């Protein structure tokens, strides 16, 4: 079980290989990568900065992974989340879950993303062609987290 917050990019393929390595009980690896789009709410995005609450971030992510392990029959899980300045196309977050059978891996991966979106202390500030703006939280993310 690994949680990392970093400014550097990550190599998703290598992270997935490392997560399941040596565990021949793994039959399923579900993963999610969030990336920076070049448009949001009809505005062109030239980049964004991801801010976080350093003292709290890792602990919040650890709690989410712990909760996923309690709810789903999974073997391991990984969250890597970037902070700092990012450009369109850049990777923001990687969530990966291993399990024996695919149902638990899919469910835990989506659960972790839904909880991360509503409980982990990250904030996005978008750069537009004419200034900056803080991204507003979406009601749909609250709805997604309440499903579980």
């Amino acid at each position, binding site marked *: 079980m690994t949680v990392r917050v970093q400014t550097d990019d990550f190599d998703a393929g290598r992270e997935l290989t490392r997560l399941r390595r040596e565990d021949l009980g793994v039959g399923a690896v579900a993963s999610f990568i*969030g990336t920076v789009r070049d448009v949001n709410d009809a505005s062109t995005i030239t980049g964004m900065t*991801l*801010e*976080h*609450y350093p*003292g*709290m971030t890792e*602990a*919040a992510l650890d709690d989410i992974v712990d909760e996923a392990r309690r709810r789903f029959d999974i073997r391991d899980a990984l969250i890597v*989340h970037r902070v700092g300045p990012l450009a369109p196309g850049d990777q*923001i*977050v990687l969530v990966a879950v291993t399990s024996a059978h695919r149902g638990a891996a899919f469910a835990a991966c989506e659960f972790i*993303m839904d909880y*991360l*979106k*509503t*409980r*982990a*202390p*990250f*904030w*996005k*500030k978008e750069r537009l062609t004419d200034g900056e703006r*803080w*991204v*507003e*939280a979406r009601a749909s993310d609250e709805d997604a987290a309440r499903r579980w």
Partner: protein
Amino acid sequence: MSDSLSSAPFAVRVVYLARLHDALGVAGETLTLCETDAPTVDTIVATLGRRGGAWADELAPGRAVRFAVNQRIAGRAQTLKDGDEVAIFPPVTGG
């Protein structure tokens, strides 16, 4: 403020994050509270709101604001003790 035993003042660190940091123009400050008030997160919100201006705007009832006490998500009713760190921030938007 009294310094009698039953109403000892104590210090709480308050941290402003993301949009609140920008709007309030400070990253954080130390507030002194009185034990007799049985202060909660809401005590801090009310105290800050009375400053008016951006403080009143950002902390007005109905604004979506979230809190953490000692780096754990907390509600407005959470009681505070000496040395606590209270973070005030907008709903999160990571991922």
